[in-house]
């Protein structure tokens, strides 16, 4: 078992695709949103769209944490990164995200000490090795990454490491889904639930989606066969007239989540009353901040940040793409003034962003299906 090839088996994929085709009602349209950016990436990387009947449409959701971070927060991070005493650390795909004064990559090129890390624990190590510098970790992500940040903050306290702090931008998954479901122009039929977030929060938080909104949810793994199979599970629900939360990723996702990780989150973080999402606006209780007991490790308290709200560029239509209202290439700046080299909107930055995924992997498909149509 290598955990790669098994979930990319072409023969099994053909069988699953055939069953999806069989269950598809030729007279209706199925609009399925994959919430997670990792799923978006997999869908394009493996060409899953080509294997689905034309009635089945995949819409990309707000589940790329890099993509939903508003410009103002990036400016705040940049203000900290530009302080001479600071070593600023962040995940790789944060580096290219544009703030109102450019990206962290550009700030690094100007000589600021900005380092890419793979884990917040790497940032902690840098802090240990540089006791005369202030080391700040730019924390982003849903419940997938927030437990590792929480553990790192707990460890910093245990080690009495006082030159380390966290600029916390962790967000939570369920509130934006509810916001999407409440939006009046919503036309979705079902959701592919995120795999990695669900390893932490479990499946039960999604139960309101079928009960209150009548939509199907299948939590899926991140390999192509996982995603294809979760679409099949959704199509079976449609064929049987059911709407429920189901778990395709049961090899990793426990129904009630990871209790230990959840306790750790509860210890270190508390909900923010509201948080701004790029393109979606402010969503109540959709993000966390560092709890008072750990205030010493909160970079927002340690350093003065501008905290200015910066409006997205007016030509940007990221919000409509995030809500599934527009396809990436229908945005007025897609591929012209907004490209992966010079992104205007965050959806064009991360390889998990819907626009970057379309731009990098999918243009040919658009070419075939949309242009000839």
């Amino acid at each position, binding site marked *: 078992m290598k955990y790669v090839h098994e979930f990319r088996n072409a023969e099994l994929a053909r069988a699953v695709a055939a069953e999806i085709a069989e269950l598809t009602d030729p007279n209706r349209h199925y609009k399925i949103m994959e919430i997670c950016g990792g799923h978006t*990436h997999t869908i394009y990387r493996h060409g899953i769209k080509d294997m689905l009947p034309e009635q089945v449409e995949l819409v990309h959701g707000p589940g790329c944490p890099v993509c939903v971070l508003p410009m103002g927060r990036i400016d705040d991070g940049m203000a900290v990164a530009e302080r001479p005493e600071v070593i600023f650390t962040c995940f790789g795909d944060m580096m290219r995200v544009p703030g109102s004064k450019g990206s962290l990559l550009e700030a690094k090129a100007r000589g600021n000490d900005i380092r890419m890390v793979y884990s917040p624990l790497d940032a902690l190590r840098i802090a240990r090795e540089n006791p005369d510098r202030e080391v700040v970790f730019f924390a982003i992500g849903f419940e997938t990454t927030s437990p590792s940040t929480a553990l790192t903050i707990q460890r910093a306290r245990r080690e009495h490491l006082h030159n380390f702090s966290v600029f916390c931008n962790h967000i939570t998954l369920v509130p934006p889904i509810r916001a999407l479901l409440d939006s009046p122009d919503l036309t979705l039929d079902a959701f592919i639930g995120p795999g990695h977030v669900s390893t932490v929060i479990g499946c039960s938080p999604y139960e309101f989606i079928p009960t209150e909104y009548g939509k199907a949810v299948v939590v899926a793994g991140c390999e192509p066969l996982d995603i294809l199979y979760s679409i099949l599970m959704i199509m079976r629900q449609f064929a049987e007239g059911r709407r429920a939360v189901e778990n395709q990723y049961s090899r990793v996702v426990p129904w009630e989540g990871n209790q230990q990780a959840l306790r750790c989150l509860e210890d270190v973080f508390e909900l923010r009353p509201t948080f701004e999402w790029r393109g979606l606006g402010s969503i109540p209780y959709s993000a966390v901040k560092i709890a008072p007991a750990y205030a010493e490790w909160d970079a927002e308290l340690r350093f003065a940040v501008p905290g200015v709200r910066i409006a997205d560029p007016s030509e940007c239509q990221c919000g409509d793409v995030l809500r599934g209202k527009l396809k990436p290439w229908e945005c007025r700046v897609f591929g012209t003034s907004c490209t992966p080299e010079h992104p205007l909107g965050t959806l064009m930055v991360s390889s998990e962003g819907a626009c970057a995924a379309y731009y990098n992997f999918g243009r040919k498909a658009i070419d075939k299906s949309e242009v000839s149509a």
Partner: protein
Amino acid sequence: MSDTVMTSATPSARRRPRFGATHIDMSHGAGGKATHNLIEGLLVPAFSNPALDQLSDAAVLTLGETRLALTTDSFVVRPLRFPGGSIGELAVNGTVNDLAVSGATPLGLSAAFIIEAGLATEVLIGEIAAMAAAARRAGVAIMTGDTKVVEHGKGDGLYITTSGIGVVDPVLQLGATTVRPGDKILCSGTIGDHGVAILIARGDLELEGDIRSDTRALTPHVAALRQAAGAGLRFMRDPTRGGVGTVLNELARDSGLGVVLWEDQLPLRETVQGACEILGIDPLYVANEGKLLAVVAAEQADAALAALRLVEGGEEAAIIGEIRTEPARMVLMHTHFGGTRLIDMLVGDPLPRIC
């Protein structure tokens, strides 16, 4: 769907990019789009001449009946030694390979050393020995050179620049414009070994794996291809920085034709694939230092493949794709899973994804 949007989203034919960055960042050195913008936006306009404007691995100059190939390359790798090779070996093989894929037999190399004060003499001796051994293996002499020393803290120990000159095979007419629909694309072995070996050797990933750089001279591979395919050999490149994905994009752009790849034919070590999966990078964009991509006429492709497989370091050679008229100027890959996807040029440094 309007045509205008698609046109704007389609990689254009050769269009001279404007260099808009206010500062140089690491992406300008990654071998992808930003590097192209640097070269075509700043260097080419200033230096423009017929030999340079080809933008191939080596400039070709005609001297009477003889065509000479001239090339240069700088090596700035960290760490200096890594599993499978070292900076000195790279510096010789890299320039030899740029000549080889231009269809040239190397005549001689120059070598310039920028040494950081504080470098242990032992390390320098080791690299000089590595260069001498690599030159012997490639059958080329290092004929001239230069040394400079910079202050401690102003360099990564050692930078090496090598230049090479060679005589171009009179039979070969290599270039993107000679490529025809139906031609096959050959890859001389597993991809991504060098780049992943370096990433792991840097040690800041806390990944361990037995992955070695593939650095080697490609002269015997080129000789085998030439022997087997003759004038059916149409195009050669060594996919270093930017990887196979970038070279094939350049081929698609410069030929005006489409490149179609089959993912399940790409030679890829399981360990390299595993490391790439963990890091969220695509082996198609990872550097190689001893691999060759060749476009060969369909009639000669099988013979060329068989010949390549007999050469040391070519055992895992494969036909990985072919040239088609459509999709013009694009690289399309049939995924192992059963779908298709576009392979674009590398944008920026390959940045690992977070989750």
